[in-house]
């Protein structure tokens, strides 16, 4: 049962804001427990405002900031003494002192609260949690997420120039040493807390975890914080979820990294499958070849290859042409694939050409002496291929008709449609690459607030 706050118009005989050791003290009494259990708390009345205060971590607590008037009180001696006197409107906390919640299987009571900042900028809330069987934890938030921290008993080992290792896990530097101060304090603490007290902090991160160094005039401590899932604190303490926004937290794991890794794996498997299929089903059989002798004067010549047996229900057929001897000549090719039984006709045309010469920029060549045409989805059957070829030559500015050319035409069952494969591979990889780009962009936004930004090492 929380005690009633004192009357707000209570006279303050010592004057507001004045601090000093002199003044009234107040005795502590143990709150009686039931049965044979040990008591859990001590009680006293604030020597400044008279409000009734309970100490939940008796024996550990050395400072209490009165939850009614905000005065800081020294409780190391049996008589509670005022360290710093305040008469302020005490603010309402998101997690009220005395509230309890279960985080990761352990019940915690909120016993202390501090508002800290770097001289007013980058403010954050720090709650002190207690359970007599598990000690203390820190619950921090700057509005973007909750981090549960525990003070380390081992000294983190320096790793490299700037990083540290704890439990075999590497932490990269994120915030360099900064001075910050306590702006506001409520509740009880196991160290001396006072508004305005300064400390130096530095932070190191890995995905999901933050290692914090803190040095005050009394001691140096390391805290290891774990970023909680957004629903954990709301579920445990019945508070509203944080609205967040802004940059990712320094230790926020990239939501895209795992996803993009998985997608890369899937895309890789799919690509391997596509390539395997292309090799298994797209490969060409031994080609049948014929040669056509052409006069390069535009007169059409014909040749026939066949019979060609196509056994699969549907298949690709490749017709290749090669004219190694031509120069400054082109050969128009028309292919007709005719089914002997049904008379169905499949047509394609192509060209082989080659030109060369000399101009202001030197020797030049153009064209290709070979080409290939593909028929796709040709049904099973017995086929003949008719090749109609007409050669032309261009010599010294006019058509020439003297030289003969030879074109070699071959037909093969099957075809590898490289463009299709490349298209398929792109389609398969695009989503993974998209997510990977989002991951990189997340990481660069996450690191943008770091004092060590520009260090682009990806930590795998």
């Amino acid at each position, binding site marked *: 049962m929380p005690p009633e706050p004192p009357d707000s118009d209570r006279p303050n005989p010592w004057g507001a804001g004045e601090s000093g050791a002199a003044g009234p003290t107040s005795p502590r009494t143990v709150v009686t427990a039931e049965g044979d259990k040990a008591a859990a708390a001590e009680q006293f009345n604030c020597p400044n405002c008279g409000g009734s205060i309970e100490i939940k971590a008796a*024996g550990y607590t050395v400072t209490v900031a009165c939850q009614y008037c905000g005065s800081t009180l020294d409780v*190391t001696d049996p008589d509670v003494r005022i360290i710093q006197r305040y008469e302020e409107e005490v603010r309402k906390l998101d997690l009220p002192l005395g509230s309890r919640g279960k985080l990761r299987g352990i019940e915690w009571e909120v016993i202390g609260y501090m508002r800290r900042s770097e001289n007013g900028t980058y403010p954050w809330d720090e709650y002190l949690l207690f359970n007599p069987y*598990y000690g203390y934890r820190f619950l921090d938030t700057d509005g973007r997420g909750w981090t549960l921290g525990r003070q380390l008993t081992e000294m983190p080992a320096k790793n490299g120039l700037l990083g540290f290792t704890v439990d075999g896990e590497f932490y990269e530097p994120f915030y360099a040493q900064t001075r910050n101060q306590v702006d506001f304090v409520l509740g009880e603490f196991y160290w001396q807390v006072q508004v305005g007290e300064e400390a130096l902090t530095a932070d190191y991160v890995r995905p999901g975890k933050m290692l914090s160094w803190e040095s005050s005039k009394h001691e140096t401590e390391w805290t290891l914080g774990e970023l909680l899932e957004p629903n954990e604190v709301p579920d445990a303490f019945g508070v509203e979820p944080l609205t967040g926004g802004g940059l990712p937290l320094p230790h926020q794991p990239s939501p895209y990294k795992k996803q993009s890794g998985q997608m890369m794996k899937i895309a890789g498997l799919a690509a391997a499958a596509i390539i395997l299929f292309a090799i298994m089903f797209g490969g060409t059989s031994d080609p049948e070849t014929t040669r056509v002798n052409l006069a390069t004067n535009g007169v059409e010549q014909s040749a026939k290859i066949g019979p060609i047996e196509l056994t699969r229900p549907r298949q690709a057929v490749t017709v290749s042409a090669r004219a190694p001897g031509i120069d400054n000549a082109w050969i128009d090719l028309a292919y007709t694939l005719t089914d002997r039984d049904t008379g169905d006709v499949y047509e394609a045309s192509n060209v082989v050409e080659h030109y060369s010469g000399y101009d202001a920029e030197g020797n030049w060549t153009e064209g290709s002496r070979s080409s290939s045409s593909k028929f796709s989805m040709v049904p099973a059957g017995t086929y003949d291929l008719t090749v109609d070829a007409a050669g032309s030559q261009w010599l010294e500015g006019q058509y020439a008709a003297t030289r003969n050319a030879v074109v070699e035409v071959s037909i093969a069952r099957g075809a590898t449609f490289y463009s299709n494969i490349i298209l398929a591979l792109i389609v398969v990889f695009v989503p993974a690459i998209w997510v990977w780009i989002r991951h990189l962009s997340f990481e660069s936004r996450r690191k943008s607030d770091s004092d060590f930004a520009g260090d682009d090492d990806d930590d795998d």
Partner: protein
Amino acid sequence: MAKSENCPNCGAEVVFRSSGLPAVICDYCHSTVKRIGEALEKIGEVAALPFDVSPIQRGTTGKYDGRNFEVIGRIRLGYEQGSWNDWLCLFSDMTHGWLSESDGQFQMVIEQPLESSHSDLVQRIAAGGDAVPGDRTEIDGQPYFVADARWARCISAEGELPFAATTGWSVYNVDFRNPAGLSANVEREEGEPPGFYMGRYVSLAELEPRYLREIQGWARPEYAA
């Protein structure tokens, strides 16, 4: 082994469990009683223990490095910014160690011969020198750092003890930490030879404790169920 006697001050029963633990605090009159040969002598007295919510109490048992222990005494020490408990643990082989409880963290340390440290810093502290947090030394080939160094005062004590503690008795205590979670302490006190202790930080759970103190409003922890 346990020997039952009567407090020379008030006549209440006091128990000595080991010849290595010649002192006891009378539970009734808080006298510090020391056994000298066959005789018992009141050396001084301690203040009543201030209330705390420590989960440990006399009678708590547990296991450390495969050996069973029982908590049979404690010293409560304080300094201007806080206080801590050193719980005396009697192992089944009648040796003892200290379960030191500070800010909800625990370390178990066992006294070692001072020379075994092979550390100049430890020797210097034992000989009367001061240490500063951050000082580095090597003990047993392992790096250690001074985590804190301070004068403390005995606030109170209870149960059996290896020496006759009285309220106001003061000690200079230096705590060392290590990257692997090991710990070491050097204690320099009035009228006693310096003490050197080594051990490591422990969680209560790993000690498999039984007979923890039951505290109103808090569920018994899973590790002690």
